[in-house]
Structure formats: C-alpha cells, structure tokens
C-alpha cells in the first residue's frame, strides 16, 4: 500500500473500481460541494475533484477535496499543469495530503483558450509526465525537486490520464508506458464512445505488459441529447463521439433522448468490463450527477463495498464491511 486510499484498496484487492467526477460549484458554500457529493457517495469508491476543467474557474481542487476528505469520502484531487508552476504544485500536493487527500491525479490541462478567460497566462512549467515523477519523488524519496528533504512525505496514490481516442493513436500506449516509468499507479481515460478504438488501445497496452503495472479505469458518461453530444465533441478538447452514437440519439423521440443516452452509457460500461486489462470505470456525468447512481446500479456494479470509509471504532477495530 502506497497511500491506503479506498481507491487503492479496491484496486489492489482485484475488484472492479468505480470512480466519479464531481462538478465543483461556483460558490464559497461547502454545502454546495456536499449536495453534489451525496448523490455519488454510495455508488463509487472515489470522487475526482477537477482542477478548473475546461479552463473555467470553479471552487479549487484542493478546497473541494479537503471538504470531501473531511466528510469521509475518498477524493482524487486533480492537478493540471496549466495554472501552476512547480513551486506551487509541490506545495499543493503537501497541503492536500495534510488535509487527508490520498489520491493525486496529474494532468496536462486544457489550454486556456477552452475556457471563459482565454486572456489568462498559461503556465505549463511541468508537463503531466514530469509532474507524475515529481510527486513520486516527493512520496518515495522524501524530497522536493530542489533536493531539499520533506519531513513527512505525502503518502498518495498517483494517477494520470490518457486519451486513447486522440491522435497519434499508436503513440498513446507508449505514453502510458512513459507514465508508468515516471511512477503512475492508476490511469483514468477520457470519455469512451468508440469501442473498436478502445479495444485496439487496450490490446496494445496488454501486449506491452502495462496492465500488470498500472490500474486502468475507462472514462464513461451519459449524453443528454444529440445537441449536447455535438456541443461536447466540438467544444471540449479531446472528446470523440462517433456519428453513429449521435444518430442513435436522434433516432428516438425528444422526450426519450436522455434515457437513451443513459442506456448507451450502461452498454458501454458492460462492454468495457469484459475487456482484458481494464480495472474499473470513471463516470463523468457533466451536470447530470443524479444519473450516476442509476447508471452504476443498472450496469450491475452495486453494491460498492464501502459506501463510506470504515470508521475506526474507539477500540481500534475497523467496522465490518456491509
């Protein structure tokens, strides 16, 4: 165990993991975070706290993750290289760990042009791979990049991202390999709507033996309507949605499109589950968090083993699993 996070325990025990993404609020009220989290908590093992995803400002990643940790959830705090230099990133990793966060995910980050403040200065001091290695250095060597020792190193489970659906396709598995060399423990992928491409990617990953070295969770999510799908693939960097999926949504009457989108998502999860080398799914239901519970349930992924962190009773015994 590198971190002892719930996500790490679930993955290491060989169970199929479910993580979900929380859309951080535009609010300084902690209740807003809990309202979002409560619908996810009983159906997933860990909750991702995004870092100004799509380059739009929301409550900070560390803020959201700290609130979740305080309430007994298992947050995965995402760090993008877009807004912070190496000094800030290393400090934030320590801060997040001190606040009880045990999973850290290292990302490149969308460009500032994707968000509502394209005038901002992009940083990109490190890239996702050097950030992974930096966090690993902090955890395993107990020192900063400067070489200065860390008194109490951050015990975190290190994550990274991959997008099997973006060119150059044959470089993507090699990029996972690079992340493994850098010290990544788990990978969460971009939304998957293109099964043949995913199968090809996973086959290459398994041929390289990477599935033995890193836990891979495939990104999935429901599409609200053909219009929303069209908007996502046009405006959100890296999202690939085949025309066939949009046609399928167009093929049902307007009132049933949302249900159809959910159905597509459940089917994808069921297919993904059968692919060799896949350790779990990462559900991203943008502005449809209330659907996550239904999706996880109908995809046959319940019960989750820990709906809450097993409380350590005062006598030191861990509460039994339900």
């Amino acid at each position, binding site marked *: 165990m590198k971190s002892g996070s719930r996500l790490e325990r679930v993955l290491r025990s060989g169970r199929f993991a479910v993580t979900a993404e929380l859309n951080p609020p535009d609010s300084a009220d902690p209740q807003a975070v809990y309202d979002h989290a409560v619908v996810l908590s009983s159906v997933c093992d860990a909750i991702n706290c995004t870092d100004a995803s799509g380059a739009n400002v929301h409550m900070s990643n560390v803020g959201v993750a700290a609130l979740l940790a305080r309430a007994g959830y298992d947050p995965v705090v995402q760090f993008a*290289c*877009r807004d912070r230099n*190496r000094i800030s990133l290393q400090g934030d990793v320590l801060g997040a760990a001190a606040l009880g966060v045990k999973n850290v995910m290292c990302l*490149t*980050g*969308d*460009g500032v*042009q*994707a968000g509502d403040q394209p005038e901002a200065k*992009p940083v*990109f*001091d*490190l*890239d*996702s*791979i*050097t950030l992974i*290695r930096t966090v690993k*250095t902090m955890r395993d*060597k107990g*020192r*900063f*990049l*400067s*070489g*200065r020792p860390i008194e109490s190193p951050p015990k975190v489970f290190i994550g990274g*991202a*991959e*997008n099997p659906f*973006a*060119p*150059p396709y*044959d*470089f993507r598995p*090699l*990029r996972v*390999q*690079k992340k493994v*060399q*850098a010290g990544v423990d788990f990978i969460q992928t*971009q939304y998957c709507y293109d099964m043949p491409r995913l199968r090809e990617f996973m086959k290459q990953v398994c041929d390289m033996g990477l599935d033995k070295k890193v836990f891979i969770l495939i990104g999935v999510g429901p599409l609200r309507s053909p219009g929303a799908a069209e908007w996502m693939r046009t405006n959100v*960097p*890296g999202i*690939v949605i085949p025309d066939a999926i949009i046609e399928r949504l167009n093929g049902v009457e307007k009132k049933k499109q949302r249900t159809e989108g959910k159905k597509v998502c459940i089917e994808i999860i069921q297919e993904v589950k059968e692919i060799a080398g896949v350790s779990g799914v990462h559900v991203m239901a943008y502005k449809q968090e209330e659907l996550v519970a239904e999706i996880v349930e109908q995809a046959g992924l319940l019960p989750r083993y820990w709906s809450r962190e097993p409380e350590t009773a005062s006598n030191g015994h861990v509460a039994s699993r339900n």
Partner: protein
Amino acid sequence: MRRLQNRPHLLEVAYDATEKALQPFKKVLKPGGKMEKVFVKGEKLTKGMIFDCRMCGDCVLHSTGMTCPQTCPKTLRNGPCGGVRPNGHCEVKPEMMCVWVQAWGRSQKMPEYGKQILTIMTPVSKNLAGTSAWINDLNSDKVKKVPTGWSEE
C-alpha cells in the same frame, strides 16, 4: 528550410557531425564566454530557420523527432496532450498541426535517435533561456539542466 524537418534522418547525421566537430573546441567554448554570443546568434539563425527554435537553451531536438517541443503551445516535452483534434491538429491553435503528431511521425524515420522519444525528458530550466544549447551541452558538468532532486538515487 522548414522542409528539412521532414528529412529527420538527414538532420540526425548533421547533429552527430556537429557534435563531433565541436568536441576539440571544448576548452574555448564556455558559458558566458565571448564565443557564446557568436553561438547564440548562429543558433538563432540556423535552428530558427529550420525548427522555429525558441532558444530554450536546453535543446532536445534529437529526442523529439527533430521537432521543437517549445513550439507546442503547452511546451510539452514528453508527448502529446489529450486534446489533439481528430484531424491531428492542435487543441490550442486549430490551424496548426499538433507538434507531437509531427514529432512522433518523424521519430519513426530516425534509425539512430528515434527511440529517444520514449525516454522521459526533464523539465526545462527557465534560467537557460536565451543561452547557447550547444555550449550548455559541452559544459554539462557546469551547466545545471536537471533539478537536484530529479535523479533516481
């Protein structure tokens, strides 16, 4: 001149030749010395014309498919981001081909250094910006490119 980039094997040979040619002059080529000014001008001109060089002072061209990673809007040094468009163009600048799509393609035509694209590049030292990458390379014992805490020990 830019078209030279599509002959990465040629550039590989040129890189090796330059490296060999400079070795005997190691003693006079010092960072901050008189020769550095000459080298900076020369590098700006030649690498600028061929690679659109940004003078980061820590050149890794032969490890990145003879394609300058500093020309990526996110200055990524270890591969493409997840935002590459389906047509292979850049997420940030849609009119531009992704630097890493090009780098990967070119690395496949480099028998000698092509595999280098799979090794992890260290983060750039911003304090080397504007200096001569060749002179920094020749004085690797004096010029600090890699953070102290980066090493594997």
